[in-house]
């Protein structure tokens, strides 16, 4: 490995180690998730672990937290060999973990969630009183204010994460592992989290931050370890590296981080949305009168924290959900109620790359060629006669699309579930983009997609725009919105808070709009 020389010199010399892993290996069936991984984490530092999806970061941390048993290898905590067969042992060893998907009981109070598993006696009364006092002290010490009697489902995501950190601290964790902590946070909440983490570090705690976001690594960590395909490829002092170098280490080749695109040349009006309203099953209004326009040759990016109506916007335009209001495509009104479905939308030239590709974009157990045909299975070139489909033609078409959209492996007979996240997304993108739609709806195009594939998908979206098509891009990744969009609209609580020009705005301004603070 090219960086192995640096690895030896990079480790801080005298600092005592909080954690040392030696030769950790773990396989799930034929998949080697972790291969002979060794890593040293200095006490009182913030250590980043970065890698693409499926690189084995989460598996490694789950081994450290006793969720999985390693096939081989040793764990040293503060210099002592510490076997961790279960989570109880990890907690005893002073390790706390904040999972990507919070492990909270939604209808319990904050206090109940904190004491769960650490009640300290068979009766709750005493434990609750003690926990309340400890929680108050912790909150003061680390600036983690939270109402102990609030019910979790009423808390914001940021506060739920705080609660997870408090849970770990209540169990006297000295080592805190956070798995992709900022995925669900607004930029302001993320900044606050980083302040908290720095505070923990100042108190002598050790923090391990797992992420795939280069920016976060650069911003907050002292040391960073890079993982690729189950192996640790490098451990470097953050100050000595650059995002470009880390990206290259993650992917194994040079990656273009910024998107290369010419200025937009907007043409005729393609999509006009006026006063669009949507109610969900419970009768709650999710879109509260959204209006927007997109011209040909233009990408409108919708920024916002997940759950502020972006999904509903995509679903109504894609014909999956119903709503009220006016939507015109190339000047002609399209149905929003009874007659709406994905089929009629496609007939009008609206292609949809849905946010949730595993549920809406693909049938995971079906083959790639079947998935390539879905939604367009009535296309005349797929028919042999009035009754029968021409499967050979579909397979040939799928093979050609998979080739052109760089789906790996390019085998049409493989089931969708056997492709990696990035390649699954490429299958959906190939199906939707290759028919030259007038309007492309695309939600979270690179969620769970590795850096190499992100680059490719971004290029395809730009290419479609340059071919004079309109694109509506919804993403929770602000970087993606900033680099792809020609205009940015920010959604909060079912409304468009404002529109900004990506050239003149910044993350701070967008973040305030996303939080609903300014309008």
């Amino acid at each position, binding site marked *: 490995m090219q960086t192995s020389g640096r690895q030896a010199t990079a480790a801080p010399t005298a600092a005592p180690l909080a954690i040392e892993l030696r030769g950790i290996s773990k396989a*799930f069936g034929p998949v080697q998730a972790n291969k002979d991984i060794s890593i040293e984490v200095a006490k009182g530092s913030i250590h980043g672990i970065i890698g693409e999806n499926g690189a084995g970061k989460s*598996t490694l941390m789950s081994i450290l*937290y006793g*969720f999985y048993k390693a096939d081989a290898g040793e764990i040293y905590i503060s210099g002592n060999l510490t076997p961790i067969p*279960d*989570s*109880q042992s*990890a*907690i005893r060893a002073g390790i706390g*973990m904040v*999972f990507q998907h919070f*492990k*909270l*009981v*939604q*209808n*319990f109070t904050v206090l*109940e*969630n904190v*004491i*769960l*598993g*650490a*009640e300290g*006696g*068979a*009766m*709750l*009364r005493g*434990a609750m009183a003690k926990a309340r006092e400890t929680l108050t002290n912790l909150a003061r010490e680390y600036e983690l204010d939270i109402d102990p009697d609030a019910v979790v489902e009423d808390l914001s995501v940021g506060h739920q994460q705080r609660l997870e950190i408090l*849970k770990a601290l209540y169990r006297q964790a000295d080592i805190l592992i956070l798995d992709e902590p900022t995925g669900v946070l607004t930029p302001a909440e993320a900044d606050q989290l980083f302040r908290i983490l720095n505070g923990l570090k100042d108190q002598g705690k050790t923090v391990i931050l797992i992420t795939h976001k280069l920016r976060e690594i650069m911003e907050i960590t002292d040391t960073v370890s890079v993982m690729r395909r189950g192996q640790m490829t490098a451990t470097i002092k953050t100050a000595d590296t650059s995002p470009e170098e880390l990206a290259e280490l993650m992917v194994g080749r040079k990656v273009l981080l910024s998107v290369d695109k010419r200025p937009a040349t907007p043409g005729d009006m393609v999509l006009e949305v006026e006063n669009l309203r949507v109610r969900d099953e419970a009768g709650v209004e999710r879109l509260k009168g959204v209006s927007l326009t997109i011209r040909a040759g233009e990408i409108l990016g919708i920024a916002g924290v997940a759950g502020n109506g972006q999904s509903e916007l995509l679903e109504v335009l894609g014909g999956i959900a119903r709503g009220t209001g006016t939507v015109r495509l190339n000047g002609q009104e399209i149905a929003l109620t009874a007659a709406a479905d994905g089929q009629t939308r496609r007939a009008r030239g609206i292609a949809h790359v849905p946010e949730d590709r595993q549920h809406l974009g693909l049938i995971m157990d079906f083959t790639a060629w079947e998935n390539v045909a879905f939604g367009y299975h009535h296309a005349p070139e797929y028919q042999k006669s009035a009754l029968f489909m021409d499967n050979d033609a579909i397979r040939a078409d799928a093979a050609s699309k998979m080739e052109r959209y760089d789906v790996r492996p390019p085998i049409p007979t493989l089931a969708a579930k056997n492709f990696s996240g990035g390649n699954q997304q490429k299958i959906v993108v190939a199906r939707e983009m290759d028919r030259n739609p007038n309007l492309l709806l695309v939600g979270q195009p690179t969620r769970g997609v590795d850096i190499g594939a992100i680059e490719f998908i971004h290029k395809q979206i730009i290419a479609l725009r340059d071919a004079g098509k309109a694109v509506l891009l919804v993403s929770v990744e602000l970087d993606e919105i900033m680099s792809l969009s020609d205009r940015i609209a920010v959604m909060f609580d079912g409304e468009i808070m404002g529109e900004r020009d990506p050239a003149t705005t910044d993350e701070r301004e967008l973040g305030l709009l996303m939080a609903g603070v300014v309008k």
Partner: protein
Amino acid sequence: MDFATLIQILDSTVRLATPLLFACLAGLFSERAGVFDIGLEGKMLAAAFLSAAVAALTGSVWLGVLAGIFASLLLSGIHGLAAITFRGNQLISGVAINFLASGLTVLLGQKWFGLGGRTPSLTDGGRFEPITLPFADAIAPLPIIGPIYAELISGHSILVYLAIACVPASAWVLYRTRFGLRLRAVGENPAAVDTAGVSVTGIRYAAVAICGVLCGLAGAYLALGLAAGFGKEMTAGRGFIALAALIFAKWRPWYALGATMLFGFLEAVGNRFPSIDLGLFAIPSQFVQALPYIITVVILAGFIGKARPPRAGGEPYVKER
């Protein structure tokens, strides 16, 4: 309807509600822990049979109760094994238990006693006798309070009082103890319990075992308290009505008391007034007897509004990758 009739109906309500209450609380513990149990019916039936059989053979009502609990626990164990350890489908397992109990009770009953699936009628000592509470005779002559105390409150078998005592006990366990906290958590989000270092499997088995014991008491009361012996299919859907009551009660102990009393009342009314004459026309007896079941359907159709079941209910816990 005069006062004496009302007291009689309410008295009968309490007795008829008792097996429902036991079964409802049984289901409550299981479902609050995330294990759905439509096998309440089968467990009750098996418990009723074995308790009646043992009571008939030994002449001891308490040995009968123990045997009933044993039978129910055995089926609970099967359900736990299928639903928790082998992560099977909880509905299928419950249905299988119902079929198993329905067939096995008749088969064994015929083999042991040769009475066409029934057990011999229980005589003194083999079944529960009513308990007369202190001062019942002294208070009885008083107006209003007298009949309420002497007939409605006094004069039930010990299991009736036990069932009612189980309500505050259950509420206390669920909301005041560590075990209760963990049990409720396991039914909502087992991953939270698992990451807290507590065994999900252990808590769920404990819940299923409690369910077994309470179902055993329900069955034993049917055969040894309400009736005097076991009759083929004597549970008559009470396990399912208990499930309906559980939903009606929104999985809470005190509400469970109210819900099962309502169903008990409907059954008591059905028994007391085979047909109700409204002057212009008479409500036929079939309708009155079907009333509890009709109400069940209405309740389950969402008449009561949103009853939110435990979030992790019905799903085996698998650690995510």
